[in-house]
């Protein structure tokens, strides 16, 4: 049984719940016969991929939903071979460049060329072109983006690109100018509540307004997260009430625990305990930035207003160092020490830090 998030995902543009205007435009585009390159951007959990899949269905019919996964091998210029997974249907294929790391240019070039040089095999297909979806387009290297730009013009008869990104900040202007930019903004909390209610109804769960409101608030307007939270709450409790606690993910719980420990005691021994928790988080691949961010928010919730500016300042300072340095544990620990220093100074009555 799949997760609710996957089970009740809208499959067509008509079934989408919010951004009706956008859905209509996408539908019009798909039926116009002149489908442009798209760059779809918006925060995570806003429904970008859902809209893309629905658009593909609108373009090609249900055949676009039959996907398979192939692993392909590409040879780089330095004659190194890389294996790479490609999700594809008869009409489109999908790549995630962060899978290949620094070799994304080679992969993108050879793949697009190959796709573009062959016509649509299925003669009954609605469209003459194929679609290539590039996930996480903001992680494409500069080289790869430059390569894309040429390809987009050269092979436009046979090929349309849909780029998906969280923000357009890392995408080079030539690409932005060659694509139709579509922003999918995050759903409002009210919209999320509506969807939660609808989903609960489909599942036959007893929906609680207050709980739904809390979930919508906690999710940070991330619909996927909200649905996962909903499912977790209902899975964990036989009877769900308005004030049933929403279980946080383990890593968030652990970070909250770190925050409490940091606030409670300022000794070297405490730093050591915190360090081993950091190691635990890092070993589980929780990005250091996420750790720092969550920790900062937990800390400023609980400390005096006078300190908040300083805490944020040092948090930003060490977040920058996380990226420019290589041993993240040093900077995380340094942030903790700095926070303890500030707090200690404040408690001693000298807020000159």
């Amino acid at each position, binding site marked *: *049984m799949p997760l609710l998030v996957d089970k009740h995902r809208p499959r067509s543009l008509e079934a989408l719940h919010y951004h009706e205007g956008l859905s209509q435009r996408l539908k019009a585009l798909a039926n116009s016969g002149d489908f442009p390159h798209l760059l779809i951007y918006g925060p995570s959990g806003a429904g970008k991929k859902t809209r893309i899949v629905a658009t593909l269905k609108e373009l090609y019919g249900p055949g676009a939903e039959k996907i398979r996964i192939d692993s392909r091998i590409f040879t780089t210029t330095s004659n190194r071979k890389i294996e790479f997974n490609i999700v594809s249907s008869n009409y489109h294929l999908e790549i995630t460049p962060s899978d290949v790391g620094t070799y994304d240019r080679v992969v993108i070039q050879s793949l697009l060329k190959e796709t573009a040089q062959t016509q649509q095999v299925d003669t009954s297909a609605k469209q003459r072109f194929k679609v290539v979806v590039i996930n996480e387009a903001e992680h494409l290297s500069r080289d790869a983006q430059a390569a894309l730009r040429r390809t987009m013009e050269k092979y436009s008869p046979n090929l349309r690109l849909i780029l998906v990104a969280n923000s357009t900040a890392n995408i080079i202007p030539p690409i932005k100018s060659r694509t139709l930019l579509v922003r999918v903004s995050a759903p409002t909390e009210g919209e999320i509540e509506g969807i939660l209610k609808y989903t609960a109804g489909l599942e036959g769960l007893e929906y609680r307004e207050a709980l739904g409101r809390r979930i919508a608030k906690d999710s940070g307007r991330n619909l996927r997260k909200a649905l996962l939270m909903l499912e977790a709450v209902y899975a964990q409790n036989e009877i769900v009430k308005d004030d049933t606690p929403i279980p946080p993910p383990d890593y968030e719980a652990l970070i909250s625990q770190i925050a409490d420990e940091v606030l409670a005691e300022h000794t070297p021994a405490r730093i050591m305990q915190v360090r081993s928790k950091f190691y635990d988080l890092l070993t589980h691949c929780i990005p250091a930035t996420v750790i720092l961010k969550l920790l900062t928010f937990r800390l400023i919730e609980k400390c005096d207003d006078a300190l908040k500016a300083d805490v944020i300042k040092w948090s930003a300072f060490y977040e920058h160092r996380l990226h420019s340095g290589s041993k993240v544990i040093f900077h995380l620990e*340094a942030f903790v020490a700095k926070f303890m220093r500030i707090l200690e100074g404040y408690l001693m009555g000298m807020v000159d830090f």
Partner: protein
Amino acid sequence: MAGLPSKKRRRTIIDSEDEEDEPIESRSSSSKAPPTRRTSTRTASSNKAASNKAPPKATAKPPVKVPPRQSPVKNQSKKLAGKYSLLHSFFGVPPEGDRKANEVVEDAIEEVSDDDSMPTKPRVRVLKDSNLQPHLVVSKPGLSNVKSATSTKPPPIGKVSTPTTKKIEGCHPLKAVQRKLRCANSVIDARTWPEKFEPQSVAELAIHKTKVKEVRTWLENVLIRSTRQRMLVLKGPAGTGKTATVIALAKELGVEILEWRNPQITTPGDAYGEGGAFAAGLSGMFEEFVGRAGTFGSLELAPSAGPGHGKSPAASSKITTNLEDGKPKFIIIEDFPNTLFTSSTVPLQAFRHSIKSFLAIPSPPQGAPPFPPLILIITETPSITGPQSFTAHRLLSPEILHHPLVREINFNKIAPTYMFRALSVIVAKEARESSRKFGPSKAVLDALSISGDIRSAIMGLEFLAMNGDMPDTGFQERISASKRRGKRPDDQPLTAKERAMIESVTNRESTYGIFHSIGKVLYNKRYGDDPEDDYHAPPLRPPLSTLPYHARAVRTNLDTLIDDTGTDPQTFIQGLHENYLLSCNPGGVPRLPTSDEDVVDCYNGCLDYLSDSDILGSRQWNGYNNDDDNSSNIRADEISFHTAVRGIMLSLPSPVKRFLEPKGGANKMNYPTSARLWKEKQEVVDTVDWFVVKNRVISPCAGGVNEALLERMPYMALIERRRDWARRQQGAFKRGVPAMESEWDLPTKVAIEKATVFKGVGRPSDEPVSDAEEEGEPRKWRKKEKQELPDVEIPIGEKLVLSDDDIEDF
């Protein structure tokens, strides 16, 4: 003098030498060749044959001619003896010299001198011959010397050698030699101890019973075909008895073993046959091996596999097999093709592919003979070495490890008690064979047992036994019945010499280097700490007024410290980071900062500098190696090193009193945890990748790694946990009610648990640890006995909350 033989004479010698059929003579003559060569340049330039001919001794009257040549030998040996006197003293031979021991050593030295001055080829040949007449070869140099020395009284040069001669006569070196002889006789195969005393049966294995049972159960299940699994992955550190277990079990179950060996010839071109038949090289051959063994496993495997490889001239890969048919077989792969170790991923993928295709072969029908199961034995390096090293995870990818037909069994380091028992048995056995009178003391065995690597422990034992007849080598315990019955008090501690020796045997030099130098920084010793210090450095003004100012100069020479760290600067800095916190302590010495705030300042300062040093350091640790500008990297590392070291020394109080609240042990220095966690991290990364790929098939909108890691998997874990609990409740209260359907298949569940459950990092001090202070306290050997964890299912819910007990505060 014999030193300058004429050409003619040499020729005659050739003839005479041809008539010689006594191998001893040629051996001894060759051993005497070096000095002759030294005297005449012409001979020196001649080849081996000439040098063999050179000694006139090879003619009719050996004894007479020997002495003149012997003197240079003796001289040389003296030189060598000088050189090795260090060794003597190191191994506890008193400088004045026990005569007997000296002689034994000199024998050895003469052999060594052979090695030094001879071209290597003849030596090799001689060694090969040694299979035929081992005792002759082993002991001959010594014997012939003795003979010649005793039988002749050469007037002029003999003077040098006469004292030695007498010594020899005096203390019966022959006895020693004869003992050696006996040894050599009984050990004709001359294998090393780990091979010689390899466990012959399951009972002899020094491995925990449950582990053996686990393997045995699997193998038996495969043989009786109650399981369809066909691949067993045994992994663990070196010397933990993985291979021994399989071989012993195979013997017991009456199973043949087919083994992949790396082919010897790896030169490209001719080796790979014509027309690029083996274009893929080793991996190709390997793939073929696996494929063949798998495909034709039910057929008569030996003939089909043998010729198959014989076809290509280069493929010297052997399949060791008996020709008896009808026995069930195991395929063992222990020696992985070298190409898998390179950075390129192609061979690795080819390897995985061949494994996968092996797993994909459909099972034979019920009546047919079963498949030979594939047993991979993977020696993992548990620590330190970084992401390039070799682990089962890296080799096989989670996809294979999670495959339903694959079973993975992890071997732990051997517990000291088991190891001790095994070593004692070996000592007893060996003593029976060689009639050795002295064995190692219990303390020595204890010290050897701790390493957890049984192979190296036995090697160490053998090494100690080489010098077993000398005093003070750790072999002073009389091997007697009484000892074995335990009537003697066995718990004397190690003597200093024994300890030194064991350290040299179980060599961990570099690791001590790093702890030692970390200690130097973190103890922050300065001149003037002790009142009796006579030196007070001139007070230097710090460049910035904000820096804390200690007017006392640092005792450690910081300019040379970087050369003494025994590791690279970045690892060293990580080591500092791992250990600095215990030095940030108040209350050591009254004039030091003692308030809480000062302590905060202290670690805050340290961390500031560490953070700075990381920014300044080279980038190579960030996953990507920029090899192109190495010089700047080295420079950057140096800067980073000095920033960290000097910054920490500025920030720490001085003197330092390290302090650890509950347990003590503050003097221990730990190896950087971060350097040991890469393996776990790699496993999580692989697992998440696998999950992402799998998920993409299920749901078209599933996103990338971050989404899976931060949203999907944690919540799936929450949901699953609850269902687990509910299932258990149902099982407990409503028997007969079918348990709730599981949400996800097993591999997914395993993956989710792996990626989301925080168990706390392991103790930071699994690695060898030293008591870091440079002077004083004896180094302790920390016991690292890993408890065998029984496979009790711990309710996952209990692991949900990470209590303080889970995180071990060290």
